[in-house]
């Protein structure tokens, strides 16, 4: 016999009450862990798609470019001298896995009978695929190989444009664009691939080879509007971004003394970061709700338990149980109730997540069709167990102190 056995048997005195309380706590833990598992996996999956297939983990632009990105300005290229320095920095940085220089511009695409406006990203295919390795898997028609994905003279268009203009791989199109001096130029290209709508349902983003953009826009030197960067460890994003940003801020315009370049992480560039933040806020809310469930449930049971057993408390105190032991008896009861219920919740939720990870949850997000295989959120599981433990102790403390402070003579008189 020990305190744990006594506590367990006391809990089992009122089986239905204990079972109801335990199931309420277990349900709370289940919701936290399921939400954590599915929410985080969804977030990870979408962020992975965004960073791996189009955005990169972070991007470098000329100062002021991002605030006017909707116009895709042609006169805000990274100066060549600065570009060389940045490339040197990125080549030397051990946290950088790859980077891709891009020219972004707006233009018109014509199939000789219809014309539509589009945004284009001109890339060096090998470097783009090293920076956005998920890009080939988003190409629905055409070659997903890095070597043949996009060659000079070719274009990759999104599926909404392909459908609307009845274009397919091999079709000839004309790309018309205005260069920074205001002259309009055209270029014949062949469709090399049709991609998913990488920027969402309204996205009209195509890819061409950087050599074609240089010709079309009549560029004389290397005029890059964007450098997308992929990191070796995505978890170090904030640290690397801060350090790179600091280094870039040293590169200043000699006349104005202001930094030439700016750096943004994917979170600062993608509207999905708001959804990701919302998921995190919801998760915190669910955690707080769990804490309230535990505190109210455990406290209710323990207050009832002390009230029903006043005479018994008097007896054990009279026969020599010291107040701290009485406190320990009631605390143990509350902690067992909380932790055992939480463990039940963990077991059920982990089991559910394992099943879900095998069958994979199909979730449509915009035009993206995701197959979410939720991972066990270890942090969430540990946090749930530790917080339930702490909250159970806090919730049991007041009734337990009340029991320990009872005068045996008064408690024995209680009927």
């Amino acid at each position, binding site marked *: 016999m020990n305190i744990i056995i006594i506590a367990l048997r006391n809990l089992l005195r009122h089986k239905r009450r204990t079972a109801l309380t335990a199931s309420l706590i277990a349900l709370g833990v289940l919701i936290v862990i399921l939400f954590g598992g599915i929410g985080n996996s969804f977030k990870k999956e979408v962020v992975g798609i965004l960073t791996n297939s189009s955005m990169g983990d972070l991007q470098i632009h000329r100062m002021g470019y991002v605030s006017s990105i909707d116009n895709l300005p042609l006169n805000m290229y990274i100066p060549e001298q600065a570009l060389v320095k940045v490339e040197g920095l990125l080549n030397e940085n051990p946290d950088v896995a790859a980077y891709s220089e891009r020219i972004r511009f707006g233009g018109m695409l014509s199939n000789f009978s219809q014309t539509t406006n589009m945004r284009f990203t001109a890339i060096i295919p090998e470097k783009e695929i090293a920076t956005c390795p998920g890009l080939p898997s988003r190409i629905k028609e055409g070659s997903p190989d890095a070597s043949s994905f996009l060659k000079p003279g070719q274009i990759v268009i999104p599926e909404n444009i392909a459908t609307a203009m009845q274009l397919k791989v091999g079709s000839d199109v004309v790309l018309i664009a205005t260069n920074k001096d205001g002259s309009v130029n055209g270029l014949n290209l062949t469709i090399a691939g049709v991609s998913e709508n990488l920027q969402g349902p309204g996205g009209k983003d195509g890819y061409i080879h950087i050599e074609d953009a240089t010709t079309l826009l009549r560029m004389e030197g290397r005029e890059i509007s964007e450098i997308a960067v992929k990191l070796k460890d995505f978890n170090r994003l904030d640290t690397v971004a801060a350090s790179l940003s600091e280094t870039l801020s040293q590169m200043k315009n000699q006349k104005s003394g202001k930094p030439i370049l700016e750096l943004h992480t994917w979170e600062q560039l993608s509207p999905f970061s708001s959804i990701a933040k919302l998921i995190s806020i919801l998760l915190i809310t669910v955690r707080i709700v769990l804490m309230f469930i535990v505190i109210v449930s455990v406290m209710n049971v323990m207050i009832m338990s002390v009230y029903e057993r006043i005479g018994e408390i008097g007896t054990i105190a009279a026969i020599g*149980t010291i107040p701290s032991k009485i406190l320990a008896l009631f605390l143990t009861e509350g902690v067992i109730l909380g932790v055992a219920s939480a463990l039940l919740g963990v077991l059920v939720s982990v089991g559910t997540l394992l099943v879900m990870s095998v069958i994979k949850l199909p979730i449509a997000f915009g035009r993206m069709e995701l197959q979410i295989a939720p991972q066990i959120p270890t942090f969430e599981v540990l946090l749930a167990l530790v917080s339930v433990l702490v909250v159970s102790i806090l919730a049991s403390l007041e009734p337990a102190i009340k029991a320990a402070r009872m005068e045996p003579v008064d408690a024995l008189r209680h009927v």
Partner: protein
Amino acid sequence: MSLVKMENVTKTYQAGAVEVHALKGINLSIEEGKFISFIGPSGSGKTTLLNLLGCIDKPTIGTLTIANVQTNTMSRNTAAKFRGNNIGFIFQNFNLIPVLTVYENVEYPLVIVQKVPKAERIQRVLRMLESVGMLDQKDRFPNQLSGGQKQRVAIARAMVTEPKIVLADEPTANLDHETAYKIIHLMREIKDNFHTTFIFATHDPRVVGEAEIIYEIEDGIIINKKESN
């Protein structure tokens, strides 16, 4: 040498706006190994006196010495430990712990209070259960026992710590005639075998009849002391 010495003990309660003088200047000396009974009408102060002797209450005025220890100045912790090592309690309503078996109820003070090693604990619990004739019921829970059986278990629990004093408040009040008679004889037998002092507060003439010393209390004052031969 006295086991218990009460000097000018007064106990006053506050019951709402009324001040109740439960005991008024009690002087008392109790020798070891006696079978003592306090008798008197309801509200005379018997239970209050027993509570003071059991160190679960403190006198308002006066000193109380038990086994050479002045108990009226003890802290709550010290008083609890003192009770656990020196005093056994038998209650009118038996007060067994419902979630523990007969064996565990008797074992409880040895585990939680005295922390006796397991081997010795087993020996002492079994011996005590045998003494009260409850060895064959040791795995039962209190709700599976009759009143008399519960009181036997309560006696075993009170005795297992080898206390100097056992205090019993109306121990036969909830028992039928025959069972009460058996319980009184059991306590007398245990007192003779273990040389423990038994102090009762009772109305029951059968208990009074077995007592070696009888104190009569009225309005918080001992008005008479009788010793049987």
